[in-house]
């Protein structure tokens, strides 16, 4: 499974972007987006903001689960208190067949299984912690891009750990 993780500010502006692959089940942690689909990631994530803005009011949860889907791309979302959106686009290597009887429990194969949801939740929670620490930087202003290499490495570590 390939992942594209983006943090989006309140003005639809990307604050942080990171692309990685599954490190579980023998994955090598490298994103394998098809070449022509790769630049679409940003667009897909951007388009799912519409849904985010709708669902964010539905419940008090920060983790909104999988909110959108475009072809074989699934988008999970996590809202912070400052309306900063963590969006994780995950694309299984094979298209998830909707009518298979045996629901695969592996994170890599089935993007909508509860296991995957849980893993993504853990990932988000960990990133959220690092995020809060990062933006407590006194020089950080709202909607500013985050360029901290430490934060990037933390996100990478969280990705490797849970996804």
């Amino acid at each position: 499974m390939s992942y594209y993780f983006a943090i989006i500010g309140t003005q639809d502006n990307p604050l942080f972007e990171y692309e990685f692959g599954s490190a579980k089940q023998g994955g090598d942690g490298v994103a394998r987006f098809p070449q022509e689909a790769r630049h679409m990631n940003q667009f897909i994530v951007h388009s799912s903001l519409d849904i985010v803005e709708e669902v964010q009011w539905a419940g008090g949860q920060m983790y909104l689960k999988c909110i959108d889907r475009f072809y074989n791309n699934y988008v999970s979302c996590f809202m912070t208190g400052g309306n900063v959106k963590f969006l994780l686009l995950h694309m299984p290597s094979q298209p998830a067949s909707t009518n298979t009887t045996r629901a695969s429990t592996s994170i890599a194969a089935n993007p909508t299984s509860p296991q995957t949801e849980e893993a993504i939740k853990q990932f988000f929670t960990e990133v959220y912690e690092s995020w809060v620490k990062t933006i407590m930087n006194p020089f950080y202003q709202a909607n500013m891009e985050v360029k901290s290499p430490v934060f990037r490495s933390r996100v990478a570590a969280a990705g490797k750990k849970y996804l």
Partner: protein
Amino acid sequence: MLDQLSPVAPARVRVVLLPIGQIKRARFLSFVERLQPENVVRLGDISPDGRPHRNMFSPLAFPTGMIVYDLTTFYPPSSHVALSPFELYREPLVIIAVADGAELDRVPYRSNRRSLTGNGPPRPEHNLRELYQDLEEVRDRYPKALVHQLLVFDYVHPISAGKLPEGLVAVPPAAECKLTTLKTIMCDISSMLLAEMTTLAKSLQALPTIGSPSQSQGIQPQDRTSWQVGQADLLARRNSQFSLPGQDSRSGSPAGSTDRSHVRMSMPAQFRSDSNTSSPSARPTTPQNGELATSFDQIVGPANGDSKASQRPIPSRLASAEPTRDTSRDRVSVQGFGPGSTSERSRNIGKGRIGIVIGSLYLQAGRWGDALKELTEAGTIAKYNLDHLWHAKALDYILVSMLMLAWTGYDFQIPQICYITPEKAPQAQGSHEPKSPASNRLVSMQNLAVLLPELLDRILNLYARAANNTGEALPQFPFSETVVRFSKLLAVVHLAGGALDDDVLQLLVVSTPFKKRPNVVAPRLNIRPTRTEIVTTLFRAFPTSVAPEFLSLVDRTIILSGIASILGLLGYYRKKALVMRELVSVLIPGLVQARIRGAAEMGVHPAAGLAALNSINGSTNGAGALDLGEGDVETGVDSFLGLLSQTYGVVTSDSGSGSADSHDDSNEAAVGRIVQNAMTRAFGGQHLKMDVLRSCINLSEALPDFHGVLRFTADLLRTAGSGVAPGPRSDDASPSMTREEQVRLATNITRTLGAARNLGVKDIEAEYWDEFLVRGVELEALPMTRTPIPHKKSEISGATTVFASQVVNPFIYNPFLRAPNIAAKDQLLVAGEGAIFRVTLQNPYEFDVEIESIKLESEGAEFASSTQKTVIGPYRTQILTVSGTPKAAGQLKITGCIVRVRGCRERRFPIFEEPWSPQRAVKIKTIGVAAIFKPKDRPSSTDSKASVVPVMTPPKTVTLGLNVIEKQPVVVVKSNTLSQSAVMVLEGERQRFSITLQNLSKNTPTDLLLFSFKDSTQEPLQLAMSNRDASPAELYEYELIFAQKQALRWVPKDGELPYIEPGGTTTFEMEVLGKPGLTSAVVQVDYAYLGVPPTEVQEKFHTRQVSLPLTITVNASLELTRMDVLPLTGTIPRSLWAKTEAGKDSEKDITPDDYCLLLLDLRNAWPSHLHVHLDISDGGTIDEEILPGNTSRIMFPVPRIYLDDPHLAIPALDPSRQRQFVVSTGKISADSERSSREAFWYREEILKMLHGTWHTKTGPSRNGETELRGIRLSQRMVEAIKIEEVGIDLIVNGSGSQKPRHEIFTDDFAELKVRVTNGRPRRYFPCFVSNPRYETNPTTSLWNSPGSSFGTALYKEPYLKYRPRNQ
């Protein structure tokens, strides 16, 4: 035309309007517009066709039903037509040819080859026949349409000319039309349509089954073949309708129309029935069965398994694409007999399918109740036979029928088939049967609204399931279209708050928009169906990118645009943008391909293949093959792409509010745009923006839409740019784009311009991308001679009095001598004279910006700016000089520059001098895309804008304020009498020279000329005067020299007023005085044209200055090297006395005591003989010749001087130093102060007495004054010169003071006379004490020496009055 993707599209009858004959496009479009409002026809208004076999769709059965026509101007693409009869509504059933009656009277539009044959009927008549021929051709070309009609617009058929040919209907001009004229025509057409529908339905019913549309239909360009098939079948079809040309069934219709015209909605019901009964008789010639029967045989033939079937071409409409496969399937159906078998099932399936198609015909015919019934029946058959595709279709149609019923306000029942299980059906129908119809309808609608999501989902799933049956899978296009239609239904219901009400139905059927735009910004979570669900459903329509070959380009664009429009409805702008971007990316290759193909067809270069594009392009946005003008299409594409890029936060030049025509370049607009741009720049992701813009550029290039290319290229540059006005070394203003790309974009603009010019496209221009182009405008300082210097009125009066009195007091402020104020001078311009401005231009991009023209924009006084062109190099600011000429006096403001950058619109740029960069918003006011779309939603917020706190401090525009004064002359020094402006004078010599001034201006005289002078002595003098340590005596000396010994002076002629006429010259005389230290001098002439006498000058005036520098050499002439003053005692030789005036008359008694001897050592430093002449005030004169280099001592007695008060304070000539109480700052004692004052006053007295001149005896004649101010008096000299206040003469034995020594004898009396003189005008009361002393011992003298201690005597101020001596 109506929305093709409307949920109720199946209930419409498609009409194609074709232009026919000679007709102009505009006329055609206006006719189409006239027809457009008549697109809904009530069945009750239609008179039924009387023929017995044509009453299956008789309008009488359901008079309140309606036929909704979809008036289009293009024939649908073949892939769509091929879907009928599965989706019968796709096929145009009515073809209306539109002709222009006005053209009938003109030259025959066809070539004369036909009309040449003899003397035919008059021209209009003839042309009508031509039209009829054309109509026949149309019938031949579109055989599948049921009705072909030709409308001759703006044509009144004369009754005398007989009937119009069959199929032609005249429509009088709009002015002569009654309200119902067009309606009547539409009703007639409807009547025909309904009649012909019967034929169609009958033919359908005769079929055993109908094939499902196959997957392959979508892709194969089979229009050719199918049309050929159609052509082959032409005769048969045509005969079916028009068996007997001229007098057969259809020809009866014009006759019938006279009857029918009585039967209108407004007529009473009885009438209607009457006319109905009469109508059959009106057409007795209608063949009862014969023609119809044969036609049905022909159509139905193959299905009957007739032996002729294989040879006979199959009507394309009824057969699917591949005839072979169709026949094979048919054969199966024929072969298989027997209950329960496959054939039984397929028979049932066929029955169901035919029922469904018939139902759809009912639907189109407006008989929705019947349609509902028919469809429910057929749908049930399909359901039980697992014919999923048709089952779904039936449900689809049922839904549409219900919607249409609901729209007309009819009660309807939701059929059981719509529920998954019968139990789920609401019990409402059963329990509350005695209800009013209205409330019943409401209940039904409510139920339907509740049912909708589930029902639609089920239909879609059924469609999807159909793919399991071999060959039955629904092609992608109809599936996607269905999804879009359903989603639209859901979306509209959602927008209406989750209820199905009349507004919704109006919107669905006739596209009447909601009265109040629903708020889609706020979350709408509680409205069922939720937006998220709708979007999920909608995205099922999204064509899978993996299989592009399953969907043609046109279909794909239609689907994508449909999806986008629904997303827009729902307020999902970003999703919409994603779809639109997809649409763009689909369009680009298609367009390129089409361009190449079109170019190949026309044999021209691809870039020129504009014409081929219009049709393709038109169908994307639904404009159809209307063949819009190039401009029409472009605006659509423009705004479409604009909307796309706006969603991503692309920084555009037009700030979202549209109205691209009215470019507002005022300061406020520019500042607003900058702030707006800064806000959008902060919005969204840079990558996305640039990616989208690149797509837009590609699309525009593919079109080719040069406007679009330029606009989006400019937008891309603008987006990439930083949008700041950088300071000298503060911000990084470089754009976030590689240098290569910037250069490429720049060349792209040039290339596009070139291509456009080659194609003859004019005035295409982009919007320049950097608002901060002009970073400063300043006035280049004029040359000193041209700079006008402002003066106040008071200054001129002072100046004139000074000149009048001829005594120039330098200590009175002379405004014309002072250095002009730099700041003030900068803002002055002279009317009619050119000025040069320095314009600072910035270019933060990495490519050259070519400025085709730049000129200054001004406000206030009339101003003409020159036009400049330049190239600004990459990443720099550049200074350009632009000249301009103010034409009139007054206030002038340079407010900006009007710049035309190559490829860009000529526009005004305000001046932004201060560096500026946007500030980040500290508080978050909006979330997401609302920030961009908000101002659009509230256009009326202009009033409240003032109260809104600005988001960031906007950049400041500056203006250059200038003062333009009246025309002024220009004066130059034409010549002077000095050679090379140099003069040599001797010290004390005065020389005259003259200056000639010329007025260069053609029409302005000079009437004010003021001369002021500067010389090299003034500077050190002023320096010395400002020295605080200088003693008052020195200061006085300096001031005296400064004030009275002016080096230069104007010598006016008597009564002369300085004036130079335009173009004239005037000479002025000057005088120079030789002074030590004088090396150079400047003659400054301030001149102006006042136009009035100086006393009447208004507030202010301005002068200009011309100056003439002079070099002066001053040589020493006569020097006073030494002087001395000696007291005279004893006997003086008579010759000495001769030098005094008093000495000339010898009888006067002169005493040496009254005089002192003045010695002057004069040296001749000039190499020629000098004659010195000294005047002494009491009349004496001394003449002396001095040889060069010699020193001559002149001795002469001068009377001693009595000064009343030699201790007066030394006066100050400078009025600024005249103060009342001055504390001496020096550290000198009171005594020395007293003595210096004494020396000062006595010196002054001496100088008053003496006046010396000199002149040369040999060489060039020179004369001058002898400078005597060099004398310095020591204490001794003062003693010698001053007369004591009290004089004492001792006369011993009658001999006076001439003898210094007296001899007296001891013990002898000597007579001592003491004469006391009082020099003062006051009375003394002396006390005389004789104090003799011995010669031998002076120190023990008893007498004080005379004069020394006399002062110890007491005196008293007398009671007499004081009388000054001179009275």
